[in-house]
């Protein structure tokens, strides 16, 4: 496992949710809110189209951290995020994390997740035990 110091970046994670992702995630999570899975409904309530589930997007931030810990999800002790912009299917998400503190095998990071210029998650704070 790599040693990290404050100021270091974690390996960037890039992922593009496909058009069917929101339906699969809705069924797996139980969050069947139609703004995620019904294009017509989403447009009717003023959205450009179906939007990603925030918790799915959050899971990509978790994945970026678990990857650093050799894929062990137990290494991630805490994660808090703020959902800012709406995320959309079929657009690449880039997850970028910077280490803000490193001590005794624990690192704390600050993360943003973007789609183009749109920050869909920001001020994310993670505690990872390495």
């Amino acid at each position: 496992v790599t040693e990290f110091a404050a100021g270091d970046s974690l390996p960037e994670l890039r992922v593009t949710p496909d058009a069917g992702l929101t339906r699969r995630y809705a069924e797996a999570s139980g969050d069947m809110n139609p703004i995620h899975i019904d294009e017509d409904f989403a447009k009717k309530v003023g959205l450009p189209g179906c939007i990603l589930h925030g918790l799915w997007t959050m899971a990509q931030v978790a994945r970026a951290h678990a990857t650093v810990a050799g894929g062990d999800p137990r290494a991630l002790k805490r994660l808090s995020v703020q959902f800012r912009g709406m995320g959309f299917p079929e657009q690449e998400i880039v997850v970028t994390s910077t280490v803000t503190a490193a001590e005794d095998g624990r690192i704390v990071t600050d993360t943003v997740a973007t789609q183009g210029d749109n920050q869909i998650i920001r001020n994310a704070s993670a505690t990872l035990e390495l």
Partner: protein
Amino acid sequence: MGPALFDPELELNFAAMVHGGQEFEWGEPVCAGDEITTTVTCSSIEERDGKGFYVFESVSSNQDGAETVRGVWTNIVRGIS
């Protein structure tokens, strides 16, 4: 979370609701076959800039009583006033 969010006493307007923030703190990992019990509390309801901020706290434990995850859920309802 469902029973808490859909509690009629809260009168949450789902069409105008967005997930504003989320925090998780994990304990014991959850394995297939576990029985998870979750208790949810609505910890605050505030109005700021015409938006309603509904904050829920959840605590989940497995069949052995070990805490698996603790969550803080911030839901924002637009156009409340």
